C-alpha cells in the first residue's frame, strides 16, 4: 500500500511536529542585528534596497529654529544657506559641519582595491543584557560587493554580497551642495518606490505559497524632503569609498538640512574624539547617532538609541557599529574566524 503509506507518513510528520513553534526571539535577534547593519546593507545593495521610511543616521540642527548661537562667519558655499538681511547666518552646528567639510576635503583617498573594516557591534537587549560581536568587512571598491567575516553564534562565518555601490559610482555623484541634495532626494524617492514594489510582491508571493494571509504592511509614514535628504546623506557618508570631495559636499548638504543636533567634544565607544551628529526619528521612535572624526570627517561609529515608551509598548534598547579600523589593500585578507 505505498500510496497509503505516503499519506500516513504525511500525517505522521505533521502530528509529530505540530507542537514545535518557531521562537520569536530568533526573528527579533536577526532583525536587531540588521538594524545595526542597515547602513552597510543599504550601501551594499543600493540598487535593490529601498530607502525605508524612517531610517535616519545623523542630521543637523535647523538654522533658524536652532537655539544655538548665531555667527556671521561665512561658509565656503553660501548658496544653500539662509540669509538674513543679506548676511549669511550660521548656527554653531552649521559651523561644526562646515569644519568637518573642510577637514574631509583636505584628506586624500588611500590606494588599494579592497577596503578592510574591523567592526564591533554592540546591542543592548530589552532585558538589559548586552551582546557584542566583532566582524571584518572586505569591500571591493570596483564591484561594490564584498565579504563579511564573522564569528556570530548560529550564523555562517562568511557572508558575501556580489554587488553594491562602487567607488566609480560614488565618484560620479555631484559634489556641489545644491546638486548633491537634489540627487540624494531623487535617489531616496526612487528607492522608496522600488522598495514598496519589492515588499508587496514578496508578500503576495509568500501568501500564494503558504496559503496564509500575511499581515499587510501599513502605509509608510510620508516623510518630508528634509528627512529623506538626511537619510541619504548619512547613509552615503558612512562609506569608506567616498572621495574627499563627495564627503566634503555631504557635510555641506547636512549643514543646510533642518532637524539636526550636533555635539562637539564627544567621544566614540573607543574613546576617540568625535563630533556627534544625531537626529530623532519619529517614525522609528529612536535617536540615530553618528560619531565622526573631527580631523578627517570619516565615520567612527553609528548608533541607534531607543528610549523606553510604555505608552507605545517600546522598551529601551541600544545598538552600535563601531569602526575600529579602516584600511586598504590590494589583496583579500584571509578569514580569521574559519
Amino acid at each position: 500500500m505505498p500510496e497509503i503509506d505516503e499519506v500516513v507518513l504525511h500525517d505522521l510528520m505533521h502530528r509529530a511536529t505540530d507542537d514545535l513553534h518557531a521562537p520569536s526571539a530568533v526573528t527579533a535577534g536577526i532583525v536587531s542585528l540588521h538594524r545595526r547593519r542597515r547602513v552597510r546593507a543599504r550601501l551594499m545593495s543600493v540598487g535593490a534596497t529601498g530607502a525605508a521610511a524612517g531610517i535616519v543616521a545623523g542630521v543637523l540642527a535647523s538654522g533658524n529654529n536652532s537655539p544655538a548661537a548665531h555667527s556671521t562667519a561665512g561658509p565656503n558655499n553660501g548658496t544653500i544657506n539662509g540669509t538674513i538681511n543679506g548676511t549669511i547666518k550660521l548656527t554653531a552646528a552649521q559651523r561644526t559641519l562646515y569644519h568637518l567639510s573642510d577637514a574631509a576635503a583636505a584628506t586624500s583617498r588611500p590606494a588599494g582595491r579592497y577596503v578592510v573594516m574591523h567592526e564591533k557591534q554592540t546591542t543592548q537587549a530589552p532585558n538589559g543584557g548586552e551582546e557584542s560581536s566583532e566582524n571584518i568587512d572586505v569591500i571591493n571598491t570596483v564591484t561594490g560587493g564584498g565579504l563579511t567575516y564573522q564569528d556570530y553564534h548560529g550564523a555562517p562565518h562568511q557572508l558575501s554580497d556580489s554587488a553594491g555601490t562602487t567607488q566609480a559610482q560614488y565618484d560620479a555623484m555631484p559634489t556641489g551642495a545644491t546638486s548633491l541634495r537634489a540627487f540624494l532626494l531623487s535617489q531616496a524617492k526612487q528607492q522608496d518606490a522600488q522598495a514598496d514594489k519589492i515588499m508587496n510582491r514578496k508578500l503576495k508571493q509568500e501568501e500564494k505559497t503558504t496559503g496564509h494571509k500575511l499581515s499587510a504592511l501599513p502605509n509608510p509614514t510620508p516623510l518630508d524632503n528634509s528627512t529623506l535628504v538626511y537619510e541619504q546623506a548619512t547613509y552615503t557618508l558612512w562609506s569608506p569609498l567616498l572621495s574627499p570631495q563627495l564627503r566634503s559636499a555631504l557635510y555641506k548638504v547636512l549643514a543646510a538640512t533642518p532637524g539636526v543636533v550636533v555635539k562637539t567634544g564627544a567621544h566614540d565607544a573607543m574613546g576617540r574624539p568625535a563630533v556627534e551628529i544625531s537626529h530623532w526619528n519619529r517614525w522609528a521612535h529612536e535617536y540615530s547617532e553618528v560619531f565622526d572624526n573631527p580631523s578627517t570627517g570619516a565615520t567612527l561609529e553609528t548608533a541607534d538609541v531607543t528610549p523606553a515608551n510604555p505608552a507605545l509598548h517600546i522598551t529601551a534598547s541600544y545598538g552600535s557599529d563601531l569602526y575600529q579600523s579602516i584600511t586598504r589593500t590590494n589583496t583579500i585578507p584571509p578569514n580569521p574566524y574559519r
Partner: protein
Amino acid sequence: MDSKQARAFEAFVAGSGDGLLRMATLLTSDPGLGEDVYQETLHRLSMRWSKVENPGAFCRRVMQNIVIDRVRARQRRPPEIGLFDTHDSSDPRSGDPTAAVELRPALLAALATLAPQQRAVVVLRYFDDRSEAEVAELLGITAGTVKSTASRAMAQLRVQPGLIGLFAAAEPTTVTTRKV
C-alpha cells in the same frame, strides 16, 4: 535591513516560521539541530532579503544546504544524546501516546536512517507537499531521481522498527495487528 524590510521579514517569519522549524527538525532528525538550522536559514534569508524573490523557496533550498553541511560536521563529532532518548512514558505529562512528543522520537529515529538527500525528498514531498518537479528544482536533481529516491526512502522507512506498526495501521486488513 531597514524598518520596512524588517516588518516584511517579521511578517514572513510569522506566517512561515513554524513550518520552517518543523521542516528543519525533520530534515535534521534532531530538534536541537533543527532549531540551529532554522536560525541559520533565517539569518541567511535576512542577509539576502532585498534580493530574494521567493523567500519560501529560498529557505527550503538553503535549509537543505545547511543540513548537509551540519550533518557532515556532526559526523566528525561524538554522538549527542537527544532529549527524546530520555523521554519517560511513565511521566504523567506524557499524555496521549499519539501526541507529537510521543510520535517524534520514532519518526526522527526512522528519518535518521535515511541519507540526507533521501530525507530531503521525503520531507519536501510528503511534509511540504511539493510536487516531484518542485522537489527536483529545489534540490537540483531530476524528477526521475526524486521519484526513485522517494520510493527507496519509503521502502526503508516501512521496515523501521518504530514505524512498522503505524504503517500497518493504514492497511485495513492489518489493523488488528497494529502494535501500540
